[in-house]
């Protein structure tokens, strides 16, 4: 098997280059920017491309900041709060391995696994947000999220690992480097689409919003108000932003591009992915989890496996440099 040589050398992480505190602040700032941009794009898409609604995320956040935190009768306060706080924390942590500007905050030998782990921990967080308030709709929403998780998790893992396989590296910087000649989206279209759909699913957004569906009074988030709601909604937006950025690293060649600097290209591509996701995701009806599970296992799992197999064969034939 050809060794592209990217997996051996330890690349310099942001934390090593700048010191830990500035690097963490930079990642948090990037998270806020990505989350805000996603919220804006999403709101414009919801409101039928009304540009005025771009201000809505700011107005709403302000409202949540000064709103009373509501409670319910005998909630499981500890677990509820833990779940609420975990959502944005996991979102920011997942961004720690996304190479915006060519470097990641952390460099582990298995960035892809790290990203996947943050998303998997979200299962617990979301379920606790549903469990905590001791309310029927929230709990039903929590269970729906787990059911949906059964559907998207395996295809998502296969999609992630396909990119790692093509680059012969689990480091995101290594994966970006391996796409110098050809973006992975060309040889891994299925993995690309599945990755983005899974991102919508693990943030229960758009057609995968059943855990927060209108039929159960917005489910897991139905009992949240004030700063609690702000934190959870912001976490979801950051997660979607981080996933868009990750998609750029894995499939769209990272910051590669002519004339403009690497971070500029990186952000432009990320925003384009966000716009595409919002435009498509807000136009389709909900995919009910009970139907989607079947589709995921019967179609998506085999499809992503075939994709992985195909990439594996290309690797053996030396297609990738």
């Amino acid at each position, binding site marked *: 098997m050809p060794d592209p040589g990217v997996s051996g050398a330890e690349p310099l992480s942001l934390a090593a280059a700048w010191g830990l505190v500035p690097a963490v602040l930079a990642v948090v700032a990037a998270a806020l920017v990505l989350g805000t941009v996603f919220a804006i794009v999403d709101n414009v898409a919801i409101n039928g491309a009304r540009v*005025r609604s771009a201000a809505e995320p700011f107005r709403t956040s302000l409202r949540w900041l000064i709103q009373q935190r509501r409670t319910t009768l005998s909630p499981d306060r500890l677990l509820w709060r833990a779940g609420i706080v975990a959502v944005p924390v996991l979102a920011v942590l997942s961004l720690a391995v996304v190479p915006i500007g060519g470097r990641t905050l952390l460099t582990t030998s298995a960035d892809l696994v790290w990203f996947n782990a943050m998303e998997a921990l979200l299962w617990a967080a979301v379920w606790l947000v549903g469990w905590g308030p001791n309310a029927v709709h929230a709990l039903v929403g929590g269970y729906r999220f787990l059911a949906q998780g059964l559907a998207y998790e395996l295809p998502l893992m296969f999609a992630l690992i396909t990119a790692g396989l093509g680059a012969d590296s689990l480091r995101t910087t290594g994966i970006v480097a391996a796409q110098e000649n050809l973006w992975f989206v060309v040889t891994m279209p299925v993995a690309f689409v599945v990755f983005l759909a899974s991102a919508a699913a693990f943030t229960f957004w758009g057609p995968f919003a059943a855990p927060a569906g209108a039929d159960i009074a917005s489910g897991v988030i139905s009992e949240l108000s004030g700063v609690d709601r702000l934190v959870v909604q912001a976490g979801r937006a950051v997660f979607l932003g981080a996933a868009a950025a990750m998609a750029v690293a894995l499939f769209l060649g990272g910051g590669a591009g002519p004339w403009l600097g690497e971070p500029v290209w990186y952000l432009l591509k990320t925003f384009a992915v966000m716009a595409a996701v919002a435009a498509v995701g807000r136009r389709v009806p*909900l995919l009910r989890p009970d139907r989607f599970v079947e589709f995921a296992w019967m179609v998506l799992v085999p499809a992503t496996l075939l994709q992985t197999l195909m990439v594996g064969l290309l690797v053996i034939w030396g297609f990738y440099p």
Partner: protein
Amino acid sequence: MDSRGWARALSPAEAGLLLTIGTLPAPLSEAADLLWSQMPQPRHRQAIDETGVGGQLDAAVAALSTPSAYEHHVVGPAAQLSQGSEASHRSDGGHHGGMHDHEENEEDADPAHELNHDHQNPVQHTGHDMGGHGMDHDGHATDEHDGHDAGGHEMDHSDHEMGGHGGHDMGGHAHMHHGGEVAGLAMAGTAPDRDGLQLDELKVALGPVLAGWPTGLVLKASMQGDVLTNVSLSWICGVEDDHHLRQDSRHRSTLLLVDALAQFALVAGWPHAARQARHARAALSSDDPDERRRGRRRARAVAQTIRRSPLLAWSVGGLGDDRGHAEEPDTRQACRTGDVLERVRALCTVVIGDDPSMETVPGVGPEDVEFLLEGAELAAARLIVASFMFETAPTVVHSGAGHA
């Protein structure tokens, strides 16, 4: 509301403004009070009447930014709130958008001080904490708070933690047991489920005011997991037509059809289509003939979108099929409507008007639908209810003050 960029709240926690339209009959005003008791501050409650709706909405939003929007808190930067963000409406556009129904919008705040004061004290304190457990929010039935809050509760507890409570483990008890008390509320009991297993059951109620739900309709059931059993569906009160609906019957039925499509799209998780349908509805109820023509065009467009969507068909097809149903009441044998998808497509076809054999969709009563809900999951039950056009309830008893 859409034209103001306001969103409808799906739960009281999300709401800031509660708008009620016209005079509410007693069961609905009780529901509105309960809803109000569960809304976080700052909040505002406003009754809208037929004169100067726009001005009243502006006033409601302005009120949100005043200190009176907070009852117990010292006011801080409340002024910033003025944009009020979203109003959430419950039935607003969606329903008989009009005056004499109650629509409950929820957003924030309120000067309507005097009004509130009555309930505020009682409700706020007891009510507040009782707040949101259970189904209530959407679902407060007039029926009992204890009833369902307790509800939410129980489920979890007996489910997971206290397996041993009351007849939990013993298969043999046919009826519900109370497994003990948590926070002063009875625990859920157990009952045989649809597969004959002994499972926890929780008494729930949906309605009478709920997003995407016919206002005034109440569903009471036991819930095991998210499966409904012992379902009863009934009107607790009817709603009066708004002035747009008090027109010739053909136009009236078009408006109701478009309302039904908007409601269905909301429940089916298709906010984009729901928004388009509400736009069409708003244009259709205009007095300007050009605007109405535009409304008809938009209504046809959204109906086409819904009728053609393969994703929707895949997602909701096969639910709530009323053919060959063992428990079907005899009265319904004659008018079978198929499954959720077929009913919704029939709605669309009538709106589009391209099939002369389909002039209208028959209205149904709760008793025609009830049997389909038995054993349905919560999501399916909501879709089934949303796929029918209900005959308006016999307008009731307490239909408030007459209108001009």
